[in-house]
């Protein structure tokens, strides 16, 4: 039950001068309450503030009007669309935003293992987070509160929704929110700085670490040795003496095997390039805000990580191929047995594992179309009559040329496939790709 608005309560939108009617209470937080409402035949969400909160956050209305005017970076943000006001009660106000569909689940659900998405979905979530926060920052905005509670994703495909955008403001302006404990940059925890895009980058790194490791990057032996996890203890751990659990120089805060199993189990399964990024994020990036990993780096790493996925030849579980080690065998993290590493396609600077469901996108095949994952240009396909034969199918409208290892030249018409044989070089139009073994 909400405290502020009753079912059937009517509010009016400021810009569009429509009436919206409260349908039901959805949830409450520290700032206000969120309701489902009907607005001109459309179901929307209304956030309505506690009058007491408005006394604290005096710039809120101006800030929201600015956000409404600028518009959302893209459809991943549940962004304020219009102000709503009450004719009966002028002590508060609210705003309209799109309803979050039920298919979107919280990262808390992932941390509690109420959902267990596949690893390639997690890489897509990571990619979407980096891509979309970059869009927000590119507009000159700072988010201020990247954390579990504000990000949702579809466990079937990794699509994200970013909520609680009412703390967003132009970077460099004073805000009402410092962030959420465990996600705040050390300089904020120490009371030396306010939230900026640079502290957003730290929070994003923490969120990505949680996403892949289901543990906190600074919670190791220093955390498990704390008896009472109160504010002084948290200030020490996250602000005064933060040490990354896998800091190569300072090993004092390694994960405690009795507490931090997730970190111990998860860390080794990722390719070294991802681990090195996390090391940078939580060593140099802890100490120097200017050395934090940029979203563009995370975006590139997430796309690369997705290309590393293959299936264990014993148990079928998703594994990540570490192309830098160039080993034909690896140990599957799930069944513990030796697994054959896959053949891969070297396409420009991209290395793409070849598995039963690999797709090649303009992102891979055209250096002018980076991060274009809209329509695949090729996919792995099975031979129509011989299920043991696999090929790469031409999904474009143009004919490919290919040369086999022995020198023979082949043409691959649109809709046809070329067999997967090491040494074959395929010209995808703008880039040559070679099928390789490790």
């Amino acid at each position, binding site marked *: 039950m909400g405290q502020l608005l009753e079912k059937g309560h009517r509010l009016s939108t400021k810009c569009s001068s429509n009436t919206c009617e409260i349908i039901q209470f959805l*949830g409450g*937080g*520290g*700032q206000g309450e969120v309701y489902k409402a009907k607005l001109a035949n459309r179901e929307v969400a209304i956030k309505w503030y506690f009058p*007491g909160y408005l006394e*604290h*956050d005096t710039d809120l209305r101006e800030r929201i009007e600015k956000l409404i005017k600028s518009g959302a970076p893209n459809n991943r943000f549940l962004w304020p669309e219009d102000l709503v006001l009450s004719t009966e009660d002028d002590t508060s106000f609210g705003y309209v935003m799109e309803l979050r569909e039920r298919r979107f689940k*919280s990262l*808390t659900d992932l*941390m*509690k*293992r109420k959902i*267990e*998405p*596949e*690893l390639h979905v*997690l890489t897509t979530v990571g990619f979407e987070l980096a891509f979309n926060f970059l869009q927000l920052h590119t507009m000159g905005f700072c988010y201020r*509160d990247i*954390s*579990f*509670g504000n990000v949702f994703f579809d466990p079937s495909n990794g699509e994200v929704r970013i909520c*609680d955008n009412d*703390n967003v403001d132009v970077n460099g302006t*004073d*805000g*009402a*929110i*410092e*962030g*959420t*404990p*465990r996600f*705040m940059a050390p300089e904020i925890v120490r*009371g030396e700085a*306010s939230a900026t895009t640079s502290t957003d980058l730290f929070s994003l790194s923490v969120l990505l670490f*949680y996403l892949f*490791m*289901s*543990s906190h990057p600074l*919670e190791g032996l220093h955390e*498990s040795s704390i*008896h*009472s*996890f*109160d*504010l*002084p203890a*948290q200030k020490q751990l996250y602000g005064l003496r933060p040490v990354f659990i896998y800091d190569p120089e300072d090993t004092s805060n390694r994960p405690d095997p009795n*507490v*931090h*199993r*997730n*970190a111990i*189990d*998860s860390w080794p*399964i990722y390719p070294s390039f991802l681990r090195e990024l996390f090391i940078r994020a939580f060593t140099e990036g802890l100490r120097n805000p200017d050395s934090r990993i940029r979203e563009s780096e995370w975006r590139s790493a997430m796309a690369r990580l997705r290309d590393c996925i293959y299936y264990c030849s014993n148990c079928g*579980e*998703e594994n990540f191929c570490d192309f830098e080690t160039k080993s034909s065998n690896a140990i599957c*993290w*799930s069944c513990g047995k030796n697994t054959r590493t896959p053949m891969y396609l070297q396409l420009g600077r991209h290395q793409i594992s070849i598995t039963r469901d690999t797709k090649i996108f303009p992102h891979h095949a055209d250096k002018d179309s980076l991060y274009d994952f809209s329509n695949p240009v090729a996919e792995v396909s099975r031979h129509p009559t011989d299920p043991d034969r696999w090929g790469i199918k031409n999904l474009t409208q143009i004919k490919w040329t290919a040369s086999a290892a022995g020198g023979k030249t082949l043409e691959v018409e649109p809709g046809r496939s070329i067999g997967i044989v090491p040494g074959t070089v395929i010209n995808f139009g703008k880039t040559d790709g070679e099928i390789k073994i490790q």
Partner: protein
Amino acid sequence: MALPGGELASRPLYFFWICDCSGSMGGQKIQSLNTAIRESLPEMKQVADENPSASIYLRVIEFSSGARWKNVQPVPLEKFSWSDLSAESTTDMGKAFEMVAEQLKMPPMPERALPPVLVLVTDGQPTDDYKKGLKAINDLPWGKKSVRIAIAIGGDCDLDMLQEFIGNPEIKPLSANNPEALARYIKWASTAVVKDVSSPQSQPVSRRAAANVQIPQPPAQGTDPDVW
């Protein structure tokens, strides 16, 4: 298909309801308290659901002539159900404090936890030696770290005594002069206080704290007339 690792490691948060069941609580007061706590449970469970870093366990002790645990072992919040209290006899609050202190020793308390939350709900003054029981709590490491809330029902409580129980001048006893105020305070203690002790929320700029645990502002009592 599965993921490596399992659920995020969490710390336990032990939440104690310390409830006055003396004769003066009889009738409407005890029934209002039963209802208020029952009503607060779904939202408390929602708070727990939203916080992967804390596992909440509940304990309930009632005191009247002597004191009794309503549940012998701490019960995980998701399995907890409230069994109604009934009122009788004297106000042996000190005995309840002694029994709470026993449970704050290590063991049964684990070495790693969030600060325990002790919520005292009373309508009167102790009839036994409360100072001895309170000292037993204050002498323990987990007792020192505990966050204490006191809710006074009606106007007959000794607020100085409740302040002594709280042991922190920044937190005042809450006076609930009607059932609505009681319900608001019970909900606040079981949701807002729990949230802040387990610290998952967005932090406003003004909330930089020097204290061990930052306690949120309690809800306003309102202007409803006294109906006890």
